[in-house]
């Protein structure tokens, strides 16, 4: 298990290197010259040239890449062009809301989707199944921003139950923190929920037709034990895989959600950086997300062994 983990981490190095190269090239293939971007709109050509030399942008690309990558490896992701703050500090300031939304979305979606999928599979072909799957299709077909605005309209404006938008840090009390998270989490989580519910249903249907389920019934076991222990444990791996894919997809969804709910998270940071061509911030965020993605995938692969004794690393 440890050897496998180390091997996988080693295999992640070339992946991250490729991501780094692409990220680095972003600055140089775009239509905007970073030097003039930093110098500002009122700068003279001489000033721009000075900045170019000061930042080393006149040197060969490979040279620039090596020195940039060296800095990244030592933990220096550069400084924001806009507000001169180190990129890592900026990310650090914005990470709490994003992590909170992501974490609660995963919990919300998984906690509802798995029971729904199991229930649908157990009642396959009946109205329970049809109802759950119809809801899943609806949830799956609605984009985050539409769901977000509909929820805001209903629960914040009409019923006045929840805040319209914004974010309150955990340090300011659990109550306000949670109240501000409900709508973003629900609107982001619905698609995720639908995806997992469908996958759970499909996998469970297959598992429930297996011989060992018949054996379990022939032993006189109750439905709950059969469903949860005998069937769900067998169905776990495809479901966990889907959850992993979903987490990757969440990264995109978080950006939209944070915009809809005006939440100062990584997503907003990214959008602002993209709009203003703040290259160091864009590069830093992409690298961090990629690293997170690689680690999540590794965690999922390792979790397979947890459910299936036939898988050993």
């Amino acid at each position, binding site marked *: 298990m440890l050897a496998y983990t180390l091997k996988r981490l080693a295999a992640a190095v070339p992946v991250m290197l490729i991501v780094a190269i692409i990220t680095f090239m972003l600055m140089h293939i775009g239509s905007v010259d970073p030097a003039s971007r930093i110098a500002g709109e009122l700068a003279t050509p001489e000033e721009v040239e000075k900045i170019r030399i000061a930042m080393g942008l006149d040197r060969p690309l490979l040279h620039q890449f090596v020195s940039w990558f060296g800095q990244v490896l030592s933990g220096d992701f550069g400084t924001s062009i806009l507000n001169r703050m180190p990129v890592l500090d900026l990310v650090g300031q914005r990470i709490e809301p994003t992590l909170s939304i992501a974490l609660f979305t995963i919990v919300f979606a998984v906690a509802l989707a798995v029971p729904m999928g199991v229930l649908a599979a157990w009642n396959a072909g009946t109205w329970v199944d049809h109802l759950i799957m119809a809801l899943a299709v609806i949830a799956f077909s609605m984009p985050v921003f539409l769901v977000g605005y509909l929820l805001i309209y209903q629960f914040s404006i009409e019923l006045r139950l929840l805040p319209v938008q914004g974010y309150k840090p955990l340090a300011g009390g659990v109550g306000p923190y949670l109240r501000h998270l409900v709508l973003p989490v629900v609107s982001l989580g619905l698609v995720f929920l639908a995806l997992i519910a469908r996958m759970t249903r499909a996998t469970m249907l297959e598992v429930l037709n*297996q*011989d*060992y389920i*018949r*054996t*379990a*019934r*022939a*032993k*006189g*076991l*109750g439905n709950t*034990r059969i469903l949860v*222990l*005998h069937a769900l*444990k*067998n169905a776990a791996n495809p479901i966990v895989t889907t959850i992993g894919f979903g987490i990757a997809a969440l990264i995109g969804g978080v950006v939209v959600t944070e915009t809809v709910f005006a939440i100062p998270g990584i997503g907003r940071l990214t959008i602002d950086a993209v709009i203003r061509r703040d290259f160091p911030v864009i590069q830093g965020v992409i690298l961090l997300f990629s690293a997170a993605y690689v680690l999540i995938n590794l965690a999922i692969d390792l979790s397979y062994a947890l*459910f*299936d*004794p*036939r898988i050993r690393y």
Partner: protein
Amino acid sequence: METPILQIDDLSTHFFTRDGVVRAVDNLTCHVGAGEALGIVGESGCGKSVTSLSVMRLVQSPSGRIVNGAIRLQGRDLLALSEKEMREIRGNEISMIFQEPMTSLNPVLSIGCQLIETIRRHRGVSGKEAWQRAVDMLRLVQIPEPDQRMREYPHQLSGGMRQRIMIAMAFACDPKVLIADEPTTALDVTIQAQILALMSDLQKRLGTAVVLITHDLGVVAETCQRVIVMYAGRKVEEADVGDLFDRPRHPYTKGLMASMPHLHRGLGNGQRLKEIPGMVPSLLDPPPGCRFAGRCAHATALCTTEEPPLTETGPRHWVACWHTGAPAEVAQ
């Protein structure tokens, strides 16, 4: 005769499909006495497995349904029980062994877990006592190093081992009736013999009534006292084992026997084993009359119009055929 442990009366199990009603089991009556082994023989698709699943009330619903009859376990009608009461019977008073040892055990649960859950389900014992009982059962089915096997998973064991574990599981709660659905079909011939010997031994020692479902007459000859031959969902012949092998009456039974190779009556050069021509008819709208008529060399007009009743042609020997009156001629 004493009252049988398991009595099946007029059992009909049908499947309601989009194309129509499949009469998988039609008016089957049979019984098993205490300590007795009953064989149910027939080709694939003749209703043997559906019969066993009907007794367990595990027929695939909603398409499959027991439409008629009674199944009595020591006089108690199982068909009248609620699903909850039925769960108390399954694995406890009636247990079952399935054909495929490779897929019948749960791959992600340890052997110990699967044995113990059965014991704890039906006997209110502590985890430790259940563990001990499980180890004893593994020892009983002659599994070496039972303590270690308890912690292993099905994929670490061979097919024969897994079937032994299924047997251990089936006997774990001292069932009154054991239903074995083709328990040796998926195994090597040498392992088959071991498994059959083990089952017979346990049956005698524990006094369990056994219903052995198989398509292999050889297996029946070795293990059973009485045999039912099923064809297309119906019982066509029932007799004591020796009687059936000596004096088969139904043309289908004779066909089955003729298609078996014999050690002493070797085949001449280039001679083939006799096969029964044709296939089991579709159980969807079966033809009127005798269901075997289409494949029977002796079929007459009567056979295709009227269904032959079961008649006792000898002591404890029943046949459903219009032409058993002159068995000698039919046999030729």
